[in-house]
C-alpha cells in the first residue's frame, strides 16, 4: 500500500480522506457475519419446526394417509378422524375474509391517498386504522360474540327467510358461524391490506397521475384504469399477507366460528377451521390424539407455506416480466 493511502497522521491542509481503520473493518465484518447468521437462523428455525412437527405427526400420517384429509367426522370416542370440514372451513373463511377485508382495505387505501380528504384528517384516519392491528384477537373474539353477532343476526335471519333458496343463505344464524367469523377476520386483516396498499399507491410518481389526468380521465378513471393497475403488485403482496393471516388466525375464530364439523356453503351455519380445531383439542388430547392433531397442524402449515410461496412467486414473476401481458 502506498504511503498516501495508508493510515497515517494527516496534515492540517490537504485532503483529509483516510482509509477505514482496522476497528472499522472489524466492526463491519462482525456486523456482516452477525446478520448473515440471523438470516440463516430463521431458515433453520422453519426447517426445525417442520421437522419436529412432521416427526410427531409421522405415525398418524402413516396410519391414516390421505383418508384423514377426506374424512368428514371427528369423533375421538369412536376413533374416527377426518379434517375435510376444517380444511374447507379454513379456505372458505379465508376467502370470504379476503373478499371483504381485501376490497375494503383497498378502498380505504384509495380513499386515504387520493386527496379525498384534508391532509390532517388523512393522517388521523391512517393511524387509527393502523391501531386496529394492536387489538388482541381475544378482544376481537369477545366483541364478535357480544356485539357483532347480536347486531347481524336479524339481518342474517331476514336474508335466510326471504332468500333462503340461495345456498349462501340456506341456514339461519343462531349464534357463532362462518359469516361473523369472516367479518371479524376482515377487520383484523384490514390494517395489513390497507397499509401495504397505501404504500403502493403513494409510491406512484406524480407524473403518472398527471399523465392520466392529462389524457382526460375523471378521478375514478384515473384510479381504476391507471393508479390501481400501477400499484397492483404491491396491493397483491398485501392481499397475500392478509390471506396468510386469515388462514392461521386462531383465537378469534375459535370463539366465533362455531366449532362444528360441517361442510356447508351457508354463510350463517357454524363451521370449523384447522387452527380452531387445534386450539380447542390440544389441551385434552391423549398421546394418540396429539399425533393426529400434529397431522392436522402439518396440513395447516403446508397450506400457509404454500399460499405464501405461491404469492411470492407470482410477485417475483410479474417483476421479472416487467408487467408484460
Amino acid at each position, binding site marked *: 500500500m502506498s504511503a498516501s493511502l495508508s493510515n497515517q497522521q494527516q496534515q492540517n491542509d490537504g485532503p483529509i480522506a483516510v482509509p477505514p481503520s482496522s476497528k472499522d473493518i472489524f466492526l463491519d465484518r462482525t456486523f456482516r457475519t452477525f446478520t448473515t447468521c440471523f438470516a440463516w437462523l430463521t431458515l433453520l428455525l422453519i426447517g426445525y419446526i417442520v421437522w419436529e412437527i412432521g416427526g410427531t405427526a409421522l405415525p398418524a400420517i402413516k396410519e391414516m394417509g390421505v383418508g384423514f384429509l377426506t374424512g368428514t367426522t371427528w369423533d375421538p370416542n369412536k376413533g374416527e378422524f377426518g379434517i375435510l370440514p376444517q380444511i374447507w372451513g379454513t379456505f372458505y373463511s379465508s376467502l370470504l375474509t379476503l373478499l371483504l377485508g381485501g376490497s375494503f382495505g383497498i378502498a380505504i387505501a384509495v380513499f386515504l391517498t387520493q386527496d379525498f380528504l384534508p391532509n390532517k384528517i388523512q393522517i388521523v384516519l391512517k393511524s387509527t386504522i393502523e391501531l386496529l392491528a394492536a387489538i388482541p384477537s381475544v378482544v376481537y373474539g369477545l366483541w364478535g360474540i357480544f356485539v357483532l353477532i347480536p347486531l347481524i343476526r336479524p339481518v342474517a335471519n331476514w336474508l335466510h327467510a326471504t332468500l333462503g333458496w340461495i345456498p349462501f343463505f340456506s341456514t339461519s344464524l343462531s349464534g357463532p358461524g362462518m359469516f361473523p367469523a369472516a367479518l371479524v377476520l376482515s377487520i383484523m386483516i384490514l390494517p395489513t391490506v390497507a397499509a401495504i396498499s397505501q404504500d403502493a399507491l403513494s409510491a406512484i410518481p406524480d407524473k403518472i397521475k*398527471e*399523465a392520466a389526468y*392529462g*389524457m382526460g*380521465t375523471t378521478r375514478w378513471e384515473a384510479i381504476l384504469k391507471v393508479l390501481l*393497475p400501477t400499484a397492483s403488485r404491491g396491493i397483491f403482496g398485501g392481499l397475500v399477507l392478509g390471506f396468510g393471516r386469515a388462514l392461521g388466525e386462531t383465537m378469534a375464530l375459535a370463539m366465533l366460528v362455531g366449532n362444528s364439523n360441517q361442510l356447508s356453503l351457508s354463510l350463517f351455519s357454524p363451521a370449523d377451521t384447522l387452527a380452531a380445531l387445534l386450539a380447542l383439542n390440544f389441551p385434552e388430547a391423549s398421546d394418540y390424539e396429539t399425533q393426529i392433531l400434529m397431522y392436522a397442524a402439518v396440513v395447516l402449515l403446508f397450506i400457509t407455506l404454500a399460499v405464501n410461496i405461491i404469492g411470492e412467486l407470482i410477485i417475483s414473476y410479474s417483476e421479472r416480466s*416487467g*408487467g408484460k401481458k
Partner: protein
Amino acid sequence: MTSAQTATLTDDVVIDCKVDKIFYGNFLAVRDSDVPIYKNKITGFIGPSGCGKSTVLKSINRMNDLVRIFRFEGRIHFEGQDLYGTNVDPVSVRRHIGMVFQQPNPFSMSIYENVAFGLRLNRYKGDYDARVEEALRGAALWKEVKDKLQNNGMSLSGGQQQRLCIARAIATKPTVILMDEPCSALDPIATRQVEELMIGLKSEYTVVIVTHNMQQAQRVADKTAFFSVDISQGGRTGYLVEMNDTGKLFENPREQLTKEYLSGEFS
C-alpha cells in the same frame, strides 16, 4: 398596427387565450398576457425560469385545476366557448387539448395499451390496431416498436418513452397538443427526432411548446411568445412581453427586454 401584425391576425386562431390574472393562493403568478394560438402552427413559449410559461400552458387544458390553490381570471376561447365558462367540464377540455410533459410518463402497461388508452377512454368503436399503428407512425416510433407492442412502455429508452407519450397524445386526434419542455430529459439525437416529429404534426395539429432552448424555438416554432418576470412590485409576476413570428422576434425584437434576454444579457 403594422401590416405584419394585421396579416397574423387574419390567420385562424384556434385558442384565443387572454389571461388577466393567474393566482396560486395569494401569489399573483401571471398577469395581462394575451396569447393567441394559431391553427396548424407551432407556438413556442420562451422566457426565464419562473415566469409562468408552464402556468399559462397548463391553464389552456385546465390541468391547473388539479392545484387546489390555483385561480384563473380572464378567458380562453376555444371552438366558440370559454374554457373557463361555468358549464365546461375540465375533463372534456383535456380530451380535446392533449398534453405532453417534461418527464416522459408512460403508463406501466404495454406499448399498445399506452397508445390505445385514450381510445378506450373515449369509447372509440373503430379499428384499434389501425389507430395505434397510425399514432405510433405519427410519433416516429413504429419501426422501433412494431415487433414488441406487448412489452411494457417503461422498458423503452427515455427518448422512445417521450415519443410513446406523443403517440398516446395524438392517438385520439386532439385539436391542440401542449408540450411542456418535451425534450429537456432527452439527448440531442432524441431531441432532433422529437423536433422533426413536431414539424410533421403541424399539418394535422396545432402545437404549443414551452422550451428553454432558443435554438429549438427557432428550429420549430412559427410563432414565439416571450414571457418575463416583473419584480417591480415586490412579487415575482410573469407576463407576456411580446409575441411575434419567430423569425421577426429573434431578428428584430420590439422590446428592449426581449433583446437583452435573447442576447444573454438577462439577469
